[in-house]
């Protein structure tokens, strides 16, 4: 196995260190050391040293990471264990060892770029679709189309409310970040380039998205530098925060709202305050915080495409995050359709009375929009 120097260096640093284990979201659910940065580094170092071979077990464990970056965030020296896992996935793909769900997830994206094996209908008026020259392109994100179409309805209602001249793509593809996380690095770059071309065809002046994965891809040019050439991209919370007035009537006295930081939005891109400010504006009070919030928020299981790769594990992680809710909270808001789907499903699974909603849906409800 030919690991890049910086990956091998990180492996050598992490493979005997236990110091981030207490925070690793997968470990917190499974309690398996193999799911920690130390476990991944140990396994990969053995393979790289020629002392062990690739096995289905090693590959499966690598894809049970959410790549959420929390361990790196907490590491005193910022060792990028998430890049170790990602490099391991690249190697697994190269060796043909990627687990079947990973291969299926990649093939869907490679075939037509979408996440779904069946077409989904877009809940948007036809005249809004594929409008060249519209000022704002609303990129929904694949997870919104697949699993949280209500966020699309809510976002478009908000765009209309604030007078935005907007459009959406009829077919939205993976901007490459999904394939990159799955370890299909070369294909991810090609997907990103194709995504860029399709966006450019509509010639938007700006981009708005509610998807934290899309935002990360575009803001960090991940996985291809061409993504950085696209127009300025705002997260929906950033779009809203400058347009919302403070709420006149507050309802939060008896209904405290908590906020779950999506890993890609908060920790990776640094959009931490805008969603909180939106919540404050529309409810009259800042959100109740989890014990671990903002840059050290725990993953709900949405990260790393885990809902597709290992839905049971992802569901357990979402339930675990719900269990961390502070006492007295009745509404959990997040700012990512994927997290909204994960946490909403978890609430249903455990028959919780907690209402899970997206920032778009919260704003629509509090503004009284249809």
């Amino acid at each position, binding site marked *: 196995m030919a690991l890049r120097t910086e990956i091998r260096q990180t492996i050598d*640093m992490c493979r*005997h*260190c236990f*110091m981030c284990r207490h925070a690793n979201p997968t470990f917190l659910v499974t309690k398996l050391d193999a799911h920690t940065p130390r476990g991944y580094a*140990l*396994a990969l170092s053995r393979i790289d040293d020629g002392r062990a071979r690739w096995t289905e*077990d090693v590959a499966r464990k690598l894809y049970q990471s959410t790549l959420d970056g929390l361990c790196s965030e907490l590491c005193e*020296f910022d060792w990028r264990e998430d890049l170790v896992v990602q490099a391991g996935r690249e190697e697994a793909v190269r060796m043909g060892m990627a687990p079947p769900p990973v291969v299926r997830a990649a093939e869907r994206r490679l075939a037509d770029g979408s996440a779904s094996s069946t077409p989904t209908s877009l809940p948007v008026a036809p005249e809004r679709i594929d409008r060249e020259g519209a000022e704002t392109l609303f990129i929904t994100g694949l997870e919104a189309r697949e699993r949280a179409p209500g966020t699309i309805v809510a976002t478009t209602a908000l765009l209309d409310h604030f007078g935005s001249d907007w459009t959406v793509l009829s077919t939205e593809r993976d901007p490459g970040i999904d394939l990159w996380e799955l370890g299909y690095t070369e294909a991810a770059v090609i997907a990103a380039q194709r995504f860029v071309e399709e966006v450019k065809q509509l010639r938007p002046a700006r981009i708005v998205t509610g998807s934290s994965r899309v935002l990360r891809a575009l803001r960090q040019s991940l996985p291809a530098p061409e993504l950085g050439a696209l127009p300025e991209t705002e997260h929906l919370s950033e779009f809203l925060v400058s347009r919302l007035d403070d709420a006149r009537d507050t309802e939060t006295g008896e209904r405290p709202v908590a906020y779950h930081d999506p890993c890609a939005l908060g920790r990776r891109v640094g959009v931490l305050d805008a969603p909180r400010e939106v919540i404050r504006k529309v409810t009259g009070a800042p959100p109740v915080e989890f*014990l671990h919030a903002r840059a050290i928020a725990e993953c709900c299981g949405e990260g790393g495409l885990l809902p597709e790769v290992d839905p049971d594990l992802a569901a357990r992680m979402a339930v675990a995050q719900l269990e961390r809710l502070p006492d007295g909270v009745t509404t959990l808001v997040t700012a990512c359709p994927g997290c909204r789907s994960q946490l909403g499903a978890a609430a249903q699974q455990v028959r919780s009375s907690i209402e899970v909603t997206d920032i778009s849906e919260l704003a629509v409800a509090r503004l009284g929009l249809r």
Partner: protein
Amino acid sequence: MRPTLPWELSQDARPGDALPSLDESLRGLLEAIVGPDGVVTDATEIDAATVDVWWVTRYEFHGEDRLPRPAAITFPRSREEVQAIVRLCSERGLPIVPRGGGAGDSGGSLALRGGIVVDTKRMDRILAINDRSLTVRVQPGILQRHLEEALEARGFTMNHLPASINTSTLGGFVSTNGSGILSSKYGKTGDMVHQLEVVLPNGDLFRSLPVNRHSSGPDLSRLFIGAEGTLGIVTEVLCKIHPLPEKRTFMCYLMPDLAQGIEAGRRVMVEGLQPAVMRFYDQKDTEHILRKQYDLEGEGCFFLVGFEGRARIVDAQSECAHDMFRETNGRDLGDAYGWNWWNDRLRSYYPPLDYVCEPWMTAVTDTVAPYEDIEMVYTAMKSAVEDGFRDRGALFHAHFSHWYDWGTAIYPTFLVKDVPGDRAEALALYDAILRAATGAALANGGALNEHHGIGVRLGHLLSEAYGEESYRLLQTIKRALDPKDVMNPGKLGL
């Protein structure tokens, strides 16, 4: 039968041996107890569980890898499941290896004779917080970090804050009688335990009396504190907790020499000032601190002392301590380093500052001794390592960090950067340095270990520490409780 040398872990293992296999009928019986996802035989997990912080396991794992492996790791969620696993294994004479965090430095959870690991990390619930008596009842598999976070949210703390707070479980601390950075005031883990529940090697459940100070016969809970899982598996603990302190202060001094520093610390402790933190560094460590923190060059030994609690009491204690340091010729360096240390106290446990990322041979040989002996213990250990292994470039540095009103602990580290290429030579050198250092401690009134536990690494020296006749008592207790020798065999020299 006890191993004679730490590396003779398995006479039959050969490099590249396949994992021992779990026969299907036993797997079925275990899965019936803990569920299918509670029985793990994945090589990735077993490998990760085999390597702890001990240099020998790391060295072996990446070398010839003769390390023994368990047949399976089980993850019970209740005392009943632990009992059922123990009964099943005991009936079959299968070794049982309790495991908490598995982050010890002595091979304590190494499956020396194979068998079944009982990993307690899925037993991690806080069962009750009593805000009247200030106690917490908790399962043993909780990581200490999580326990402290939950307590802090309620305005409490257990005050057990070792460097391994992120990595290790409460059950592991009980089993090794660990110490945290605030031990000078709040004691070792054993001092914090009010009640223990333990599954015995025959599967019976033992529960100690509900308080730890009484005159109702011998306190049997103490049997299991520090027993490192050789006498049973801890399944529930009742621990003392405290309100979060109103005030915390730090003071730093440069002492002229080791003797005056030890005297200053002794006075602070024996006169009952109850500092929470006491850290005294030898000349080698002091040079590093002075340069890095103060941009100073100079002779002397650095002392950091901290108080916490009610503000008025802290102020009075601090004032009295300051007088004592002044009277022992300490130069006042202010409090900045103290706060820097407190705020970044875990930083040196991350790579690249932590030696675990290097192939260097290293070990912590902590010991504790009464005040009349401790300086000689330090001098003897330092000489044993540096003089005894000068040709190997062996380095020794130490600080004194767990102080009591009768003595203090030394936290010495030895380091050899140039590790011999030959395996037998490397392991022989490690053993020789370890024996020399611990032998120097024992010969001068020190204990075999202060707070890390002894496991495999030092377990074979326990009979020497006690003397054969006294050690026989431990053997007798072990035989009585565990006649089949299934419970964590091979540890503590048993």
